C-alpha cells in the first residue's frame, strides 16, 4: 500500500530538488535491520537522498510529504555474493554469454565488468526478487584464473553503479586440476608460479622478461591480490582442498581469502574460523556429486555458522537467472539448523562484509538506502517483494516475465492475435 503524507508538499520537494530528493517512509510489521537493533515490530524506515535517515519504532518521526509504503516485512536489499547476472543473457547462446572466453589469450586480466549489460533480463528478475546488488565473476576459461569480479546494483540502468576489480576469482579442486593441465599438483604449481609472477610485476617484465605462467597484463591484474590489496575468491569443495587453501593462507598471512562452495567446509570449520576466512555456500549441496563433495550436507551452513565462520548463502544452480533463489536456500538452511537471523545476514550483512561494502546490507541511519518491502517472511517460499529501493529510489517492478504473464493471463478469445495484447 502506498499513500502520501501531505501530497502537495511532496510534489513541491520533487520540483525543488529533483527525484532524488523524494522522501520515503517504509512501514513494516517487522523491520529486520541486520544490526544490533534486531527485528523491530511495527518499525519504520525513513529514506531521503539515497540514504537511510532513520530506523525505529512506529513513533519515529515521519517527514511531511513523504511517500509511505506499508508492508509485512522490510529488510535491507539482498546482496548476491556470487552470480553471473548481467554477463549472460542466454547461457547456451555464445553470442550472449560473456562469462566464458575459452579462446582468449588472457586470464587474470579478464574484467567481468566489461561484459556487464544492465539490459540483461535477469537483472530485472533478480531485482524483483529483492536482490539489489550482485557480485559477478567471470568463469575460468583457459587456466585457474577466471579474472576480475565486480559488484553492481540491479537498477538495470545504463548508469548502474559498478564497483570493478572487487575481487580476483580462482578455481581450485577438481575444476582447477582440469584447467591447469590435469591434476591438483599442476593447479598448485600454476597458482604458486602465478603469485610469484604477480609479486614480481613489473620488475621482471621490464626489459622484455616473461613470467613463468602469467603474461605481463595478467601479472599486472593479479598483482593487487598477490600483494594482499584485493580479495582472492577461491572455488574449493572438499575438506582436503580447503585445508590446502588454508595452508596457503597460513604461509601468506598478508593475503585476503574467501572461499566459494566449501561443500565440506563443516569438516574444517574451526580452522576456517580461526583464520577468519569467510565462505560463500550453496546451501542445497548435499549430494556426493563428485569425490570432492562426499560429505556435503544441507547442515553445512548451520555448522559453519555455529563454529564462528562468516557464511554467505547463494544459488550456484543457474546463478545468472535465479540469483533470487538465495532466499529459498537460506530458508532451507534455517530448516537445517541455521539461526534465522544469521541466515538473513548470509544474504545481506555478510556479503557486504566479504566485499568491503561499508554501509550496505543493513538498515541503519547513514546506510545506503537499498531496501525491500516484502509481503511476508523474506525467507519463505510463498513470499514476494512488493517494492524495491536502490540508492533511495523506488524501482520498476516489471520485467519481461511479468509482461509475458500479463499478455497470456487471460486466454479468452479476442478478435485480434495475442501480439496485440500489450500489458
Amino acid at each position, binding site marked *: 500500500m502506498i499513500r502520501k503524507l501531505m501530497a502537495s508538499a511532496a510534489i513541491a520537494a520533487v520540483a525543488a530538488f529533483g527525484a532524488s530528493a523524494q522522501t520515503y517512509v517504509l512501514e513494516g510489521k517487522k523491520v529486520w535491520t541486520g544490526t544490533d537493533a534486531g527485528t523491530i515490530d511495527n518499525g519504520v524506515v525513513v529514506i531521503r537522498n539515497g540514504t537511510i535517515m532513520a530506523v525505529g519504532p512506529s513513533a519515529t518521526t515521519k517527514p511531511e510529504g513523504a511517500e509511505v509504503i506499508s508492508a509485512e516485512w522490510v529488510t535491507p536489499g539482498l546482496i548476491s555474493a556470487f552470480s553471473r547476472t548481467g554477463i549472460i543473457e*542466454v547461457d547456451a547462446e555464445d553470442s550472449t554469454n560473456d562469462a566464458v572466453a575459452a579462446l582468449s589469450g588472457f586470464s587474470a586480466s579478464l574484467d567481468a565488468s566489461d561484459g556487464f549489460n544492465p539490459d540483461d533480463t535477469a537483472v530485472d528478475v533478480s531485482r524483483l526478487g529483492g536482490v539489489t546488488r550482485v557480485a559477478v565473476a567471470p568463469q575460468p576459461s583457459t587456466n585457474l584464473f577466471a579474472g576480475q569480479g565486480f559488484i553492481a546494483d540491479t537498477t538495470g540502468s545504463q548508469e548502474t553503479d559498478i564497483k570493478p576489480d572487487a575481487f580476483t576469482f580462482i578455481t581450485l579442486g577438481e575444476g582447477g586440476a582440469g584447467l591447469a593441465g590435469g591434476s591438483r599438483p599442476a593447479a598448485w604449481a600454476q597458482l604458486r608460479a602465478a603469485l610469484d609472477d604477480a609479486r614480481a610485476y613489473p620488475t621482471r617484465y621490464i626489459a622484455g622478461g616473461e613470467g613463468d605462467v602469467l603474461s605481463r597484463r595478467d601479472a599486472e591484474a593479479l598483482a593487487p591480490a598477490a600483494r594482499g590489496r584485493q580479495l582472492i575468491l577461491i572455488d574449493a569443495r572438499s575438506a582436503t582442498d580447503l585445508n590446502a587453501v588454508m595452508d596457503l593462507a597460513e604461509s601468506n598471512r598478508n593475503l585476503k581469502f574467501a572461499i566459494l562452495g566449501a561443500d565440506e567446509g563443516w569438516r574444517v570449520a574451526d580452522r576456517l574460523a580461526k583464520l577468519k576466512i569467510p565462505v560463500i555456500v550453496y546451501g542445497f549441496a548435499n549430494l556426493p556429486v563428485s569425490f570432492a563433495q562426499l560429505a556435503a*550436507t544441507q547442515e553445512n551452513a548451520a555448522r559453519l555458522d555455529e563454529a564462528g565462520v562468516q557464511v554467505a548463502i547463494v544459488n550456484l544452480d543457474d546463478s*545468472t537467472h535465479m540469483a533470487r533463489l538465495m532466499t529459498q536456500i537460506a530458508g532451507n538452511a534455517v530448516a537445517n539448523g541455521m539461526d534465522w537471523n544469521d541466515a538473513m545476514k548470509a544474504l545481506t550483512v555478510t556479503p557486504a562484509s566479504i566485499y568491503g561494502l561499508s554501509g550496505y546490507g543493513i538498515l541503519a541511519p547513514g546506510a545506503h538506502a537499498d531496501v525491500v518491502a516484502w509481503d511476508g517472511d523474506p525467507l519463505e517460499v510463498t513470499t*514476494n517483494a512488493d517494492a524495491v529501493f536502490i540508492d533511495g529510489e523506488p524501482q520498476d517492478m516489471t520485467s519481461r516475465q511479468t509482461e509475458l504473464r500479463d499478455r497470456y493471463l487471460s486466454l479468452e478469445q479476442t478478435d485480434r492475435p495475442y501480439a496485440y495484447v500489450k500489458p
Partner: protein
Amino acid sequence: MKRRNWVALAAGAIFLAACGGSGEGDGPAIKPFTPNEPFDPDPYPSTYSAYPNAPVLITNATILDGEGARIEDGSLLLQDGKVAAIGADLEVPEGATVIDAEGRWVTPGIIDNHSHLGAYPSPSVSAHQDGNEVSGPVTAEVWVEHGIWPQDPGFDRALAGGVTSLQVLPGSANLFGGRGITLKNVASRTVQGMKFPGAPYTLKMACGENPKRVYGYGNGGFPGGAPYSRMGNMAGYRAAWIKAAEYKRKWDKYSAEGGEMPSRDLELDTLAGVLAGEILVHMHCYRADEMAQIMDMSKEFGYKVTAFHHAVESYKIADKLADYGACSSMWADWWGFKMEAYDGIPENIPMVHNAGACAIVHSDSDIGIQRLNQEAAKAWADGKRVGIDVPIEEAWEWLSLNPAKSLGIDSRTGSLKPGKMADVVIWSGNPFSVYTKADQVFIDGALMYDRSDNSVRPVRDFELGQPGEGDMK
C-alpha cells in the same frame, strides 16, 4: 487366435494385493512366457512387493487427501500396505502403532514424473553417464532401466523430501530417447526391486534444441547429421512413426492369421507399443508452437502425448492443452538458460491449472526432487498474486495425483483414497512452508524414512566408508 501384448501392463499388478513380502528376494511370480506369445513382453519384471509393517494410525493431523479435500484434526489408517480409512475419528485396530500428528500435515507421497536418478547418478563421474544413448537420433530401442544404478544416493535424498514414486527417463538428446520406467522409491540391490509393479512403460521423446544441437551440430563437423533443424526433428519423428505403423501391421496380421513370424525390431517394438496405446508418451518440449505441432503429429499417426515435459510455454496454450488432454510437467521457475526456455515465467503452473489443464510439478534434478513441495508452493503463491487462488488441497494434485495419472498409476496411488497404496508423508508442518520437513515417509504402508531415527534412514553402498556416511544430509 493369437494375441500380442506390446507390453505387459498388468504383470505383477495382481500380486500387489498380497500382503507384506520380503521385497526384492521373493517377489511375486512373474507372468510366464507362453508359447501363445511370440516373445516375453515383460522380461525384466518387478520383484518389488510391499515391506511388512504393523498397521499405523495417524491422528490429529491436517490431512490433504490429494483429491482436493482437506481434513482438520484428521486420522488416517494404514493397514496391509493400503490406505484403510481416512476421516475424523477412527478406531485403533489391534497391534496398530498410533502416531499423534498434532500440528503436523499428512499428504500422499510426492511423485516426480521426471527424474534421471540412477541413470545420471551421484557421483557424476564419466563412468556414470548412462542416461542418454547419444549414438543416434532414434534410440527407441533402449530402456532406461538398463542404465539405472540402484546405489545412487540421490534416491535417499529424494525420499527425505517425501518422494515415494518416480519416473526415470532417458535424456533428451534424441528424438526418441528410449523407454522410461516408473519406480517405487525403495532401496534395493537391483532395479527390478524398485520397479513399480504393473506400471505401464513410457517413451521419452524430445522436441527442439537438444536433438538438433547434438546431431546436427555434433560429431565435430559441419554439418553433423540429421536432424539439423526443427524441420529435421519433425521429419525424423514422422519417418519413425511410418516404420512403426508398418511393423505393427505386420505383427497384427501375424497375430490374426499366423504364417511366417515377422522379424523382431527392438526400436519398433516400443514405437508400435505407443501406437497400440500401451506405452505412454512423455515428451520434452519447451515452446508452445512446438507442442502444437506435436499434438497435430500425434493425430496424424494415431497416438496420444500423455505429458509434455518442461513445457515452459504451456501458459501460452493452456486452453489447447486442456482441449487435447495432455499434462504439462513443469518447473516452478527455471528459465533463460537456452532460447527455448527464454519465455519461462513463475506463474506457468497456476496458469495451466487455471485453464483446466493438467499441471504437474516435476524436477529433472537431483536437487529439485528433494523439495518439490516448495516448488509447488512458489508457483501457488505466484499464482495467488495474479488472482489465481488455488486452495492448497487442490494444488497438491500437482505433486501426487496428476503425476500418477501421467504414469498410468493413479488408480493405485497418488491420493489417500481407501484401497490405494499407503504412500504417505507426515510433514513437520504446512508443506508449503520453507521451514517444513518430511518427518516420516511410508511406502506401501511401510515406514521407509524417519527424520528422527537414524535406523530408518537408508544409506546406499556408495556412501559406506566415506566421509559423511550416515550424516543428516
